């Protein structure tokens, strides 16, 4: 115990030191951030100043007092010295300038932005001291709605410190043991081993000392276990992430087509044409299966003197192509069924939650299957195909065995899936190989890798995990839709359906939600539930147009005659039913409202039924809207707008200028939720012809059913 005594002291001082170090580091970090922010601001100011200096401005010339109103008072300055004259200047009253209304900051946005539910309350809303005191009950209720409040010190912050702390004891412990060599000779060898191994658990004594210092943290054993636990997760992280190496990099490996394209396939949003888009957290994988046949074309003309077509007999070529076709069709069928998610590291809650049954099974299967392949491929620098390759090639082509790098091999497989046996094109795209070499490689691939190719379609383990709760929620919602009754006025969010091998019937999610199948659905082109588009030759602004009748905007990929697919660059489109998707909004201006707070004003006159703006904001779930709405009601200001049964648009944090339009029971605008290329979007349209400079109003109670939801807003207007 004599040993524990100084150790305790040491523990204490070490603890203090670490704490201080942490604090210091944090302060440094903040300082650095502050400095960088200052620099940013300075840069901006410089830009602004430059702009101002470019403007030709003259200061206001003071009008001379002579000739103007004689009733002006003079302001005199008299100096005591006789030699100095009096100085007088006319008093000039300034007009009062009214202050501007209050505004919370927000980010501009021209398209909806989906955000996840916030299960943690980010901050306790401040509504003035009076409210805070009065409404403690409200705040308590509010906090109850959430899983917790952001900033509650979790374990995460402490773990790092703890590990550091324990490790920090090593040197001291070591020293003290040297000092007390005789007494603790038994302890020494173990410690020595520890230090040399550098991976083992520190000596118990350290934990004992810590436990005695911080009794509330648990016993020595508990601490030890905890330490072990904390060290544990760090080890898997050390492994290189299961990630396909950069195709253009030096470490490019020869992998299967699926792996090469996996990132692109899974992250690409077919609806937004973007990777990892802001609106659709759930991206379907490409359905290669139904690719148009005309794309598969064979090259029959040799591309040059060295073309493989001149060397290879045509019959052979065709048989090979046949084999390829079969194989790829098989493979693609498999892959098409498997939408997979990428994992995003910083998300804290990535692991838990139920996954939809279909995906789950698939995932497990693929995971277990691939465990072996991935480890063998991942750990050995030379993947199996590469290993096999040199011998084979050496045997075939004695004179100049062309070296196929990993990247080239991968690229071949990728392109082969697209170009099939069009080896000339493949060779051109690869760039470093002739078509003959490509052909020869292809022959080998088919012979050698026939078997591995089959399970190559199965994805590695990494791809399976859902990266967010958000997508799970959507699936849950779409499931819940089936359970609730479909009354006619309910509008549900569209989700592309994906049920291979059987047509869109009553089990199809689109049919169930009473949505049309869109071009994003995986179902057949000829699906009965597909919306056919219009064949209008007019403006599509009457109910004659099937799109207009169905409260849809014309789809530029379906409606080919109305002009929705023409004139991409101009704002003059003959079709008047595609304004939202094209962003043909009006120039809006912001000024203090004549009614309450801020108001939205229009710059140019508009005609009746013209789109004024889309009401943009964060796309949140109905549950989240309920939670947020409770706070907004307290603030007496709400930017919530019901989109459909699943989602609400909240323009509080992100939005566009139309968010400032006030409510009126006699408005000049109306809101309409329109299906725009598979997304519900809120358009604000002119209810009548509007003059320039008019303030815009629309009826917040856009449907009777929602009237209750916006009581808060009505209340606000009443007060003002």
């Amino acid at each position, binding site marked *: 115990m004599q040993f524990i005594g100084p150790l305790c002291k040491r523990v204490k001082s070490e603890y203090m030191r670490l704490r201080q170090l942490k604090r210091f580091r944090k302060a440094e970090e903040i300082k650095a951030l502050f400095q960088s922010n200052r620099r940013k601001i300075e840069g901006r100011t410089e830009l602004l100043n430059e702009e101002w200096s470019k403007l030709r401005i003259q200061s206001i010339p003071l009008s001379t007092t002579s000739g103007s109103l004689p*009733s002006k008072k003079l302001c005199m300055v008299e100096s005591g010295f006789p030699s100095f004259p009096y100085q007088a200047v006319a008093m000039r009253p300034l007009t009062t300038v009214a202050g501007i209304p209050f505004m919370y900051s927000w*980010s501009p946005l*021209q398209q909806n932005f989906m955000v996840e539910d916030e299960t943690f309350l980010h901050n306790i809303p401040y509504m003035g001291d009076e409210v805070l005191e009065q409404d403690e009950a409200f705040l308590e209720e509010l906090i109850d709605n959430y899983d917790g409040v952001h900033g509650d010190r979790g374990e995460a912050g402490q773990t790092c410190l703890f590990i550091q702390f324990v490790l920090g004891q090593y040197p001291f412990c070591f020293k003290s043991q040297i000092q007390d060599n005789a007494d603790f000779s038994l302890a020494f060898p173990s410690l020595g081993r520890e230090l040399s191994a550098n991976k083992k658990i520190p000596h118990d004594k350290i934990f004992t000392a810590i436990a005695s210092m911080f009794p509330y943290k648990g016993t020595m054993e508990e601490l030890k276990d905890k330490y072990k636990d904390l060290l544990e997760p760090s080890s898997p992280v050390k492994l290189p992430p299961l990630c396909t190496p950069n195709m*253009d990099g030096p470490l490019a490996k020869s992998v299967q087509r699926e792996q090469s*394209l996996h990132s*692109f396939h899974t992250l690409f949003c077919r609806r937004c*044409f973007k990777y990892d888009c802001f609106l659709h957290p759930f991206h379907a994988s490409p359905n290669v299966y139904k690719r148009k046949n005309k794309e598969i074309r064979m090259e029959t003309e040799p591309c040059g003197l060295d073309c493989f077509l001149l060397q290879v007999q045509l019959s052979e070529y065709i048989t090979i192509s046949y084999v390829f076709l079969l194989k790829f069709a098989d493979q693609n069928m498999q892959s098409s069924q498997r939408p997979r998610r*990428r994992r995003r590291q910083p998300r804290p809650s990535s692991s838990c939650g139920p996954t939809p049954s279909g995906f789950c099974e698939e995932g497990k299967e693929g995971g277990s299957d691939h465990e072996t392949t991935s480890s063998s491929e991942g750990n050995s620098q030379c993947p199996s195909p590469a290993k096999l390759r040199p011998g084979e090639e050496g045997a075939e082509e004695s004179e100049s065995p062309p070296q196929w790098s990993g990247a080239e091999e991968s690229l071949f497989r990728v392109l082969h899936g697209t170009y099939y046996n069009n080896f000339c094109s493949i060779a051109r795209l690869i760039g470093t190989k002739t078509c003959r070499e490509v052909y020869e490689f292809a022959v080998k691939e088919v012979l050698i890798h026939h078997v591995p190719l089959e399970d190559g379609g199965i994805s590695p383990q990494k791809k399976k995990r859902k990266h967010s709760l958000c997508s799970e929620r959507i699936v849950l919602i779409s499931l819940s839709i089936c359970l609730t009754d479909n009354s006619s006025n309910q509008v549900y969010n569209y989700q592309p359906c994906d049920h291979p091998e059987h047509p869109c019937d009553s089990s199809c999610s689109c049919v169930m939600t009473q949505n049309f199948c869109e071009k994003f659905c995986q179902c057949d082109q000829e699906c009965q539930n597909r919306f056919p588009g219009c064949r209008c030759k007019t403006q599509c602004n009457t109910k004659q147009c099937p799109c207009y009748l169905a409260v849809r905007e014309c789809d530029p990929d379906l409606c080919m005659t109305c002009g929705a697919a023409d004139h991409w660059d101009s704002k003059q489109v003959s079709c008047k039913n595609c304004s939202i998707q094209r962003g043909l909004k009006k120039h809006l201006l912001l000024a203090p409202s004549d009614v309450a707070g801020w108001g939205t004003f229009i710059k140019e006159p508009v005609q009746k039924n013209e789109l004024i703006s889309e009401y943009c904001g964060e796309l949140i779930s109905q549950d989240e809207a309920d939670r947020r709405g409770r706070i907004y009601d307290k603030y007496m200001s709400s930017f919530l707008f019901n989109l459909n049964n699943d989602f609400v648009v909240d323009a509080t944090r992100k939005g566009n200028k139309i968010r*400032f339009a006030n409510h009126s029971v006699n408005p000049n605008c109306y809101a309409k939720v329109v299906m725009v290329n598979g997304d519900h979007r809120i358009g604000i349209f002119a209810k009548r012809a509007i003059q320039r*400079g008019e303030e815009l109003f629309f009826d917040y109670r856009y449907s009777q059913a929602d009237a209750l939801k916006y009581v808060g807003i009505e209340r606000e207007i009443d007060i003002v």
Partner: protein
Amino acid sequence: AVPTLQGQSGASDSQPVSAMAPQKHGSGGNGFYANSTSKVANGGAHVSSGVVMTSVKRPKMEQVQADHELFLQAFEKPTQIYRFLRTRNLIAPIFLHRSLTYMSHRNSRTNSKRKYFGVNDLLFKVEKSKVDQDSHNMASNLQLTFTGFFHKTEKPLQNSENEENSVSVEMLLVKVCHKKRKDVSCPVKQVPTGKKQVPLNPDSSQTKLGAFPTLIVPSHEFEPSNSHMVKSYSLLFRVSRPGGRELNGMTTRDNVMEELSNRKKRYCSNQDDGETTFVAQMTVFDKNRRLQLLDGEYEVSMQEMEESPVGKKRATWETILDGKWLPPFETFSQGPTLQFTLRWTNDTADRGTAPVAKPLATRNSESSTVDSSKPSNVKPPQAVGKITSTEQTHVEPRQKLRVYYQFLYNNNTQQQTEARDDLHCPWCTLNCRKLYSLLKHLKLSHSRFIFNYVPHPKGARIDVSINECYDGSYVGNPQDIHCQPGFAFSRNGPVKRTPVTHFLVCRPKRSKPSLSEFLEPEDGEQEQQRTYISGHNRLYFHSDSCMPLRPQEMDVDSEDERDPAWLREKTVMQIDEFTDVNEGEKEVMKLWNLHVMKHGYIADTQMNQACMLFVEQHGTTIIEKNLCRNVLLHLVSMHDFGLVNTGNIDKAMAQLRDLKQQKDGQEQSKTQDNADGGSSGDGEASVSNFVKTKNH
């Protein structure tokens, strides 16, 4: 009593009328508006005396006092404001009352000629006037119709007798001839043209038009005489007033006239002992034989004759009254002045169409600085119109119209009644001359009050109450108020301003003037009042910074970009967050996302084009970052989604290849180095990524 048109004096004579406007006790007399530094401030006559006169009759003084306090509380401040505004409007008018529709009778011009107006008329007019000037010399007779002689005496005039109500005016034509060799000075010939009795301080409303005396200078007088070449002609007026007393030593050296202020000279000479003689001289033709007197109404400031005539050289421009300096126009309110109408005419009998003189602005402004109790003897300008026949149709039948003002205060529970005999606005002393105009003027110009018209057997009753709704808010163009510093007054070249639309209705529908519109309004009538200013009549703000939008920024919608900076940053960050996406893929994805966000693609059919544009715009970046194969993967992936066809992949990649070859050709060795360095850098980057994940 000498009744004048200016009802105030008449009213104060005939009845103990109190001040129409509330005034603090003891502040009476001179200067209703204490803060006003204006010398010409006037209208004091109305305020001036007897504020408390209504209360004098009341028996209970204390109650009266309290009542009066309430009255003052309600009406004092707006009244002061309107008094101030009136003064300001006199000095620097923003508009002329006569140009208002409901004051059209104050306007002497007619628009009838405009119908036939052509641009050439201007030329004709000028040419004609030139010819006229020459022809005047010989052709026309000079006809002078004397309206009256005005002179304010110390004694009230009502005491004077009848025969004193006229003075005799003698007019002489003075011809100054060219010197002949033998002459020492210019020979001067005085040709008497006649002598007439002219009414003294007449009230034009009571005098008939034809009754005015007329003197004619025949045209042959202006023809060159045989013996002497006449250098200049001038008229000399000699007014002798019988029974004259020694008047104040008013010496006026001022050549003030309405239009021809500098063409008149005066000097004085004493003639008779028994009577006072005033003289004045006006030039008809100057040395260059230019005509100086055009048709019009003239008022000549007369000069009392003195022992020694003041020579031309000693003449100055001051006006002195009792040793005090007077503003130039003060002479006209004090007199003595002679008023006449001058015409050049061929027909001696024609006298009905004398041109109408324009009133002097200062005519209203008598005596506030001098002595408010002094009754005005100057005809108000409006009276001039009465003389002319053209105006007579507009004038209301002259009857004793009494206007009762009933002031309602203390929540309309108390009232105080004042009566006036004229149609002057009690606040700005404007003579509206018609009840309709008066009511309209009150309603429009004094909106701090509410005026309601109630018909009354003796005339009219106007209920005056405080307008509680008056908030002083500005109803003009707000851009004028919010004129943004540094821009509104920029004189450094053209500056953009916010476009504001004013509706100017060309021939607005006007209901016939009817007094019924001033009756107490029914509910709902207020709604019809709409602002006629539309457009951007407000100051706009930037939605991100809440800073005022400058006019030159109006046309740019700063917040309408499809890819705001924060969103661009966000998408880059979001992609960087992935741990299982390699660096090359990330770079391509970021580039592509920014590309799509910038162009806002919406249709599948756009994708082929989008890919080509992508390669075109970002080709160099792709090659620099060594991303060609990743781009190919991206394109193949797009193909898998059915968005691009193979032909486009080929084309896009061919373009990239060409670009790369170009670059390689340009700097072969360098590119080689870069490729090595770049690839090793790639490796480092991925390693660092590993490290990063470890830290997580």
